[in-house]
């Protein structure tokens, strides 16, 4: 079985990791049967998306199985002169996913909403990842700002929005409601480690809105991949979650 990884990073992070270069990531992907990965750069995650996104494009330009993320600051933050143009150029350069890791920059998710950032992203209909995690901090478990996330879904009903975090524990009760309520809500199964959770989330929409992320270079990819492989669900649905669902939304208009 092959996988399409929602979330892996390259570059030198503040925490020492076992690899830094795209070539090394490709070798690991091969070992775990991961055919494609959406990739971000360490600088985008930990210092500045403006610098990191640019370096990322250059670093992975020769590797078709590595798809670039743009980590985003909000519109009118002062970091980028022309936000619309920045997004457009990213898409022209192969960006197929935008990542909003708002806690990293101590900017409320609601500010992304009210500043009009999502109005622009909505015109491209390219998946947006909401990730409240700050690795190795207090912002790792159950950190979603669900009020602001609900604002997004109430306004944008055909923009694919994927929620991922290091760990969903208590908040799985909220995730279940979102999966039932919003057709464009997607969830990374690697975020929740609970017993039989994959099987139960699959029951909601037959697995159509589930994707998988490894959280490399930090996490052991065997954790999320293992959950999918051992789940008591049909192989066809495993393939959807493991690969097809993400490919479908990534390539929709890209």
């Amino acid at each position, binding site marked *: 079985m092959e996988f399409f990884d929602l979330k892996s990073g390259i570059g030198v992070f503040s925490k020492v990791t076992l690899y830094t270069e795209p070539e090394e990531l490709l070798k690991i992907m091969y*070992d775990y049967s991961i055919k494609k990965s959406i990739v971000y750069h360490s600088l985008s995650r930990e210092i500045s998306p403006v610098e990191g996104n640019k370096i990322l494009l250059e670093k992975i330009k020769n590797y078709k199985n590595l798809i670039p993320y743009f980590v985003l600051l909000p519109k009118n933050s002062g970091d980028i002169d022309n936000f619309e143009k920045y997004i457009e150029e990213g898409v022209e350069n192969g960006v197929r996913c935008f990542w909003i890791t708002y806690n990293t920059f101590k900017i409320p998710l609601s500010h992304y909403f009210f500043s009009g950032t999502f109005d622009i992203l909505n015109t491209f209909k390219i998946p947006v990842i909401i990730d409240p995690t700050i690795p190795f901090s207090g912002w790792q478990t159950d950190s979603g700002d669900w009020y602001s996330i609900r604002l997004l879904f109430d306004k944008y009903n055909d923009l694919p929005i994927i929620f991922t975090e290091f760990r969903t524990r208590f908040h799985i009760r909220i995730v279940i409601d979102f999966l039932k309520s919003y057709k464009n809500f997607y969830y990374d199964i690697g975020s929740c480690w609970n017993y039989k959770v994959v099987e139960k989330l699959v029951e909601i929409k037959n697995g159509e809105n589930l994707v998988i992320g490894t959280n490399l270079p930090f996490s052991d990819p065997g954790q999320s991949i*293992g959950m999918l492989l051992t789940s008591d669900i049909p192989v066809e649905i495993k393939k959807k979650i493991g690969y097809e669902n993400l490919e479908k939304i990534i390539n929709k208009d890209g």
Partner: protein
Amino acid sequence: MDKLKEKFLRGEKLEIELYDIHAHIGGYNRDYLIFDGESEKIVIEMERLNIKKAIVMPLGVYVTEWFYQNEKLINVCKKYSEKFVGFCLVNLNSPERVIEKEIDRCRKEGIKGIKLIAAYQNCENVDKKTEFICEYANHYKLPILNHYWGRPEFLEKIVNKYPDVWYICGHFSFIWKDIVNNYDNIYLCTCNYLEFGTVEKMVKEIRNDRICWGSDFSDLHFGFTLGPILLSSISDDIKRKILSENTKNLIEKYCK
């Protein structure tokens, strides 16, 4: 690629009988929904994944109604004696005489070991209370699985003081490396969030006959703990030890 990894990636059934050193039954938890947590369904799931036997403890680790929870455990272990080996839950906030009476009761009902998890119980004087449990377990030569033994120095002290206890570190950490390597009666459960590369480092640095797979069901998904071992680059022989042989030996020898 080793056979176990290859088969696992292909979604084939593993021809290996699994033994699980750390699991829970009970059906309910404050923190989140327990899906299919009924014992009958868990047994079916164990059969599906070829899990021969599991050491099980009550799921309600906050120890509310701990006598009731132990009673549920006793009944399930009696009903599925071929699948479950029960370790009773202890409320370390209770007086020592109450604790002793409850463990005595559980033992008479077939419970084979003790589970400690002071971290979830707002407990004071944890070391003193833990020593009391170890003294008891030493007398009866019982195994104890502790969620967290505290400092390695503390564990080493009680291992020397109470050498007839079988100590199980409930969650993996490299802080237990030296003590597991230096004593014969300490087992290390693999269950924890694992960073990339942990399994390979684990088997390189820690004696392989004391590393035991723990799923932490029905708290965690089986795949969350099986995946890192089965997909790691360690040999199939070591995978078999971790997933099967080590815990099988522990249960057969010390959980009679």
